[in-house]
């Protein structure tokens, strides 16, 4: 039975089993490859997207659990105020190295900033410790989140 899901304000009909993780619907069915596969078990955060503004791990989110909720991915996060600030700070602080985990890092950080405009170090630990970066960009991620929190403009 096809499912209709709303991704970045566009409705898509996808004909897959209901238990198919959202990650594969995004990447392989819809061709939106900005969201990454890292572990398949919600252990690394590379696949993080927003469902109604909440950061979720798309690799364990079955497509039939989404219903009419709005999905936002890295491809459209720059259209949100928090997402734009985070992306700007990521550029300014030169956060990415290999870059593969950064879609997920940015999605987690954007969700944090949207719900908590002045996160403390401990807030950052709580929100970001589910996202692994094998290149070890943690120091810069922390700096960039703080910079984004301090920026007042509408971001990049």
């Amino acid at each position, binding site marked *: 039975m096809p499912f209709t899901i709303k991704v970045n304000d566009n409705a898509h009909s996808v004909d897959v089993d209901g238990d198919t993780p959202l990650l594969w619907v995004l990447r392989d069915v819809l061709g939106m490859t900005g969201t990454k596969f890292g572990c398949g078990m919600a252990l690394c955060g590379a696949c993080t997207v927003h469902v109604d503004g909440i950061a979720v791990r798309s690799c364990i989110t079955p497509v039939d659990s989404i219903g009419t909720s709005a999905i936002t991915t890295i491809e459209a996060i720059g259209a949100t105020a928090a997402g734009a600030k985070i992306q700007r700070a990521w550029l300014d602080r030169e956060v990415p*190295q290999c870059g593969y985990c950064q879609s997920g890092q940015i999605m987690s950080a954007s969700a944090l900033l949207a719900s908590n405009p002045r996160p403390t170090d401990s807030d950052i630990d709580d929100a970001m410790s589910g996202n692994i970066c094998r290149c070890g960009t943690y120091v810069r991620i922390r700096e960039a989140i703080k910079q984004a929190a301090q920026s007042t403009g509408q971001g990049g």
Partner: protein
Amino acid sequence: MMLDRIVSRPAELDQSGSANSLSRRGFLQAGAAAGGGLLLSMRLPFANRDAEAADDFAPNAFVRIERNGQIVLIMPYVEMGQGTYTSIPMLIAEELEVDLQQVQLEHAPPNEKLYANPLLGVQATGNSNAIRAAWQPLRQAGATARTMLVAAAAKRWNVDPASCRAQSGEVSHATSGRRSTYGELAADAARLPVPENVALKRPENFELIGTPAKRLDTPAKVNGTAVYGIDVRPPGMKIATLAQSPVFGGRVKNVNDAAAKAVKGVRQIVRLDDAVAVVADHMGAAKKGLAALKIEWDDGPHAKLDTNAIIGELEKATLNAGAVAQNIGDVEMAMAGAATKVEATYRVPFLAHAPMEPMNCTVHVRKDGCEIWVGSQAVARVQAAAAKAADRPLDKVVVHNHLIGGGFGRRLEADGAIRAVEIAKHVDGPVKVVWTREEDIQHDMYRPVFFDRVSAGLDAKGMPVAWSNRFAGSSILARWLPPAFNNGLDPDTTEGAIDLVYAIPNLHVEYVRVEPPGIPTAFWRSVGPSHNVFVTESFMDELAAAAKQDPVAYRRALLDKSPRAQAVLEIAADKAGWGRPLPGRVGRGISVQHAFATYMAHVAEVEVSKDGAVRVRRVVCAVDCGTVVNPDTVQAQIQSAVIFGITAALHGEITLKDGRVEQTNFDTYQMLRMNEAPEIEVHIVRSSEPPGGMGEAGTSAIVPAVANAIFAATGKRLRKMPVDATALKQPG
């Protein structure tokens, strides 16, 4: 978007331009480029070898100045997060007098002969040597091209070249006010002889080198448009995932695929000798199909293999003589006369690479050829392996290389491409083979285990007069690059165990090659030093403790003949506040390292909880990597390498039981996370020495600093990695 500046170029290079001139040193050639520009062809010279005779000229890097003024640099190195696609163009832009934005970098197509890495001898990006190899030749090429462009302008205007000035991609003549762009001059310049001697800028005149230039690949990496190997989607592509024999060397005995075939979206089951793949419309269906497969395995000869048995063999091997890697003075005699003797054994575990982008490779096998999409550190190796596996001629195998979602040595190997070709041979159309994280960790090629037997003799004052080290383990180069393995030795396995920075009058180091059965080994970030520096710097700390001396003061006393090492030691100790009091169960540890042509000292500050858990609170690093091309990249690479090393020290261990790798995913093979990441301070020494490697040095250097800090905090000397928290529990 700037990603279009990083272009993969699988097509043949157009070298139709006629070469009209060759510089005397024989590594630089100039001529007309196809389309009328100026083409400079370079051969990056081999390490330890003089430039060969001019008639052997075989260029492996190219600079093309096009008629529209675009500068195109064709280089054999790949970007995997180390910033090389930014720092290499900086070298040419500096001498050519163009803005960094004018340089476009093209990825060289696979061609082992043409693009061999001068320090590795094969086309590969590894061993932290891209900048080291490119430093001199690329600046020389830039200066040569600039000189020729100026000469072309001067000839056209009939003025003295010395009265012309090159800047921002233009030549100008101040007195007449004339100016021409490089693009306008390129065709004329191509007809001029290559100047014999061009002066390179003095370091104090660098305008670009040494500045924190923005990385060119960052924008695409923050908006989701960067394309890694795993992201490719050639038309008609299917997606496959696989199960490989859980025991290395095992075989498929029987497959029941009825349930798998019934999964919606599953198209095909491919059975190989030692693996089964599920081909589907999407990875969700492929994984579901894989879970539904019932596979019986014939485990083969390694069915009972256990890590402890492998380590036992290594330990035994260190009782027999090995190949002498270095001998200075007479260790036996010095040991006999020593006031104190210190002995220890050390060991390090197997480690997986676990790059965030799991192994993957997309292949389309056709009747007359084979097309491959992948992210590889060694693209020519992939091409050769794929040609063999697909049984197609080498020149019919096209490899499209992509950004790499973490290499760390894993993507120097072609096993993933071979596997993908084996599967693709059974599939009509292109197929992307994506490994699950479990397959990625359980079928990695691992940093080898090593066992080390070290001893030292101290004089009456406690200073070392003799140092002996015999260690056993796998030689990766012996497999990967056989000519590099000679007389039982290779330069990688011994780096960090020999040529110590310390003045020790009698030293003897032996290596015993032992290849573990039933588990493949490979390069892992910081390669040989990843094991050796843990041993030598931990043991140096043991000697200081035996001599009842401060670990920094003890090392300082042995570094009189190594001023660069002494300088980084002093800076790291000073900035870390060495010697200042700390609370209970908190300690500082030091390490000093000279590897990858870079000097580095680390001070780690760790806290050990009552239950033995270790947290690294702060790391201070002082680095002298010679001339710094991009200081922001140097800082980033140290931050990265330190996290990578601490991850291994605290969590990293791959073990075998019944021939199977016991770790599966990030729950059992853990990574350091944000809440465990220390503060990291980097202090860079100003230097005009040639640049050293930066991608790996921090990883090997941090591990002993952490172990030494744990000793300072608890009095417990850890002689095997990773850290065993139960051994650090506070008694009572």
